[in-house]
């Protein structure tokens, strides 16, 4: 197998390398790729969409349809991970560990043993792989997380003017939650941001994107043609495109954030949503 793989790889690579001679040089500004279509975006992007960041205008407007499916891919991945991994577990199926807070004693409860109440003030659930009490990490994260989130919101909102946008912002938001889950424990993260909310936010985010498109449709324009929203938003068509981009970026941010968190829940706990990492 390895030998075959090597042969296949060398052959394919050889073929590809053999051919590089016909390609334009690295950084060639006069290659067809750089002269045929892309100048249009650079020259007219700002006038068409009122967004100086051309990547954003191409992403969310010229090729906004691609991006809608990009968001859908993320959502599909979340759905797929949930579908493949999630399994409901009854309390008592697996051994659990609890700490009796007043005494600091750690209890190991076997399968089928009597468990303390979920909201017990005396017993606290522990991960089965014992994690010591890391007060520095917890508190650092507690301080850092709000700043991450603020920055994420900035990235989402400022995608028109600087590198950024819904995907980047959404991932940052998700990262903040994941940081919380790592520094504390998975159960607490899930209590803050339940699975159901993640799932619904995921579909809602894509729905915002696609729904904006449908709204354009209802106003009589083509799908995702934000110009049609001008009367609704009370601005000029060009500004309407700009606002439209912002709206869909927010949708993307919602979807990406929720889905990445959702995927994290499922992957980290192998679908049990019990304890993980």
């Amino acid at each position, binding site marked *: *197998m*390895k030998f075959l*793989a*090597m042969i*296949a*790889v*060398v052959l*394919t*690579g050889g073929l*590809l*390398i053999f051919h*590089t*001679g016909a*390609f*334009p*040089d*690295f*950084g*060639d*500004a006069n*290659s067809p*790729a*750089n002269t045929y*279509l*892309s*100048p249009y*975006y*650079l*020259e007219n*992007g*700002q*006038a068409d969409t*009122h967004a*100086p*960041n*051309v*990547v954003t205008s*191409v*992403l969310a407007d010229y*090729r906004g349809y*691609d*991006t809608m*499916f*990009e968001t859908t*891919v*993320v959502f*599909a*991945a*979340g759905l*797929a*991970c949930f579908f*493949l*991994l999630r399994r409901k577990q009854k309390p008592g199926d697996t051994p659990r560990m609890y700490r009796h807070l007043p005494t600091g004693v750690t209890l190991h409860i076997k399968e089928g043993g009597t468990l303390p109440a979920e909201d017990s003030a005396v017993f606290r659930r522990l991960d089965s792989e014992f994690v010591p009490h890391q007060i520095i990490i917890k508190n650092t994260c507690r301080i850092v997380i709000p700043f991450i989130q603020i920055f994420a919101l900035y990235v989402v909102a400022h995608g028109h*003017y*600087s*590198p950024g946008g819904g*995907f980047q912002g959404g991932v940052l938001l998700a990262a903040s939650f994941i940081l919380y889950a790592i520094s504390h424990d998975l159960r607490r993260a899930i209590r803050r941001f339940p699975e159901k909310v993640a799932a619904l936010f995921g579909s809602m985010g894509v729905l915002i994107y696609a729904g904006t498109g449908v709204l354009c449709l209802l106003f009589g324009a083509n799908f995702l043609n934000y110009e049609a929203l001008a009367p609704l938003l009370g601005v000029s068509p*060009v500004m309407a495109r700009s606002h439209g981009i912002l709206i869909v970026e927010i949708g993307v941010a919602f979807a990406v954030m929720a889905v990445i968190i959702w*995927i994290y829940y499922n*992957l980290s706990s192998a679908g049990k949503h019990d304890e993980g990492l």
Partner: protein
Amino acid sequence: MNDLLPLIADKYNYWIYIVLMMLGLYAMIGKNNLVKKIIGMNIFQTSIILFYVSIAYKKGGTLPIIMGDAHGGGHAAVHAADYINPLPHCLMLTAIVVSVATLGVALALAIKIYRQYGTLEEDDINHQIRMQAGQ
């Protein structure tokens, strides 16, 4: 040899992407461990992203964020050659997301396989399957 050097020097971006791609491909076909295969898959996909982004580059070009008057006055002065090509970047944003999504699903499947067979080595899994079939 005289021809080859400038060929490599001028087009090294392609060489890099091809080498990366073949590394990834080799890992996907030749490796035994499923997680290694998944890593190979990611390298493979990333190499294509690198390829796309590299063809967008223009010597002397800068970020495709139009400088100047933010209120629509700047478009007359825009020279396309000053900015790198935004289109491949935009496409690759999509490709990155796709590769992340694929990675997620692949890992989910790997977890499921681990749960089922207790290992991620393909040989061991195939051995177990054969044992079951033999019974």
